[in-house]
């Protein structure tokens, strides 16, 4: 892996973590207040992020032959099948129970929210069980 790739992944990660923190999505209570329909801010965060990313994903491959420091344009692998939908249903149950999802769990830990270590341990365990018993 090229050093430039790692450097850009790190830099993009810092920006991502800062944005998650600024938007208060690293607070499970704020996510839960959206899921309980008392504060719709999460939709603004998601909408803003999708809008910017939509422009980049749709325009960059048309304007540039290849990424600035890479060789080819990636694509999000997404399949129309029972695993995608069933997995999303289970993911949502967990998200609704704890108000934590993968990005905010990591960024929140960086911001000193130590109890998120418990959630991170749970996520790692869940990912292992998925790979061990349901992986393909």
């Amino acid at each position, binding site marked *: 892996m090229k050093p430039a790739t790692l450097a850009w992944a790190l830099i993009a990660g810092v920006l991502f973590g800062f944005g998650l923190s600024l938007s208060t999505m690293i607070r499970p209570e704020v996510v839960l207040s959206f899921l309980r329909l008392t504060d719709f801010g999460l939709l603004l965060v998601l909408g803003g992020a999708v809008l910017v990313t939509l422009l980049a994903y749709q325009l960059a491959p048309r304007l540039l032959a290849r990424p600035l420091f890479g060789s080819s344009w990636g694509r999000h692998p997404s399949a129309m099948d029972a695993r995608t939908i069933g997995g999303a249903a289970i993911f949502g149950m967990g998200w*609704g129970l704890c108000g934590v999802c*993968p990005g905010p769990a990591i960024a929140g830990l960086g911001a000193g929210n130590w109890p998120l270590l418990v959630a991170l341990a749970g996520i790692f365990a869940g990912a292992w069980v998925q790979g061990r018993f349901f992986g393909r």
Partner: protein
Amino acid sequence: MEQFFPNGVAHYLAGGLIIGAAVSLLFVTTGLIGGMSTVFSSTWSYVSKLPFFQQERFTGSRVWRLAYAAGLLLGGLAWLGWSASGAWQTGVSWWQLALGGFLVGFGARLSNGCTSGHGICGLASLQLPSLLAVLTFLATAIVTAQLVIRLGGA
């Protein structure tokens, strides 16, 4: 407005635009798709000999995914230093974090995407399966969160 956004809208919009800028920056510079949940499978490839975790899609991406995750940690830390609001700990109970986290990890990996993978990258790629995944997890999350209040959870 006040009714739907009792805590204001500016920090939500600014944070969302910054998150979008981050995922866009990763794409424009490297061509990589910046979903977050795969790191929880690819990191297992360092310690597990199971054939599933030793697939090239995990072993070939585990290094940049860890760098990306390390950036997230640093971004949280940078915000902590910048905001001067002080570290803050969640009051959600440990069993909710543990069980909820387990289901989040299992479900996101089975679905091959989470709030960032399907929610941001999938929607921005105009992928119909990701849209259905997002609508599905929003629905089950809202139902679950409502049930938890009724059962007296945090």
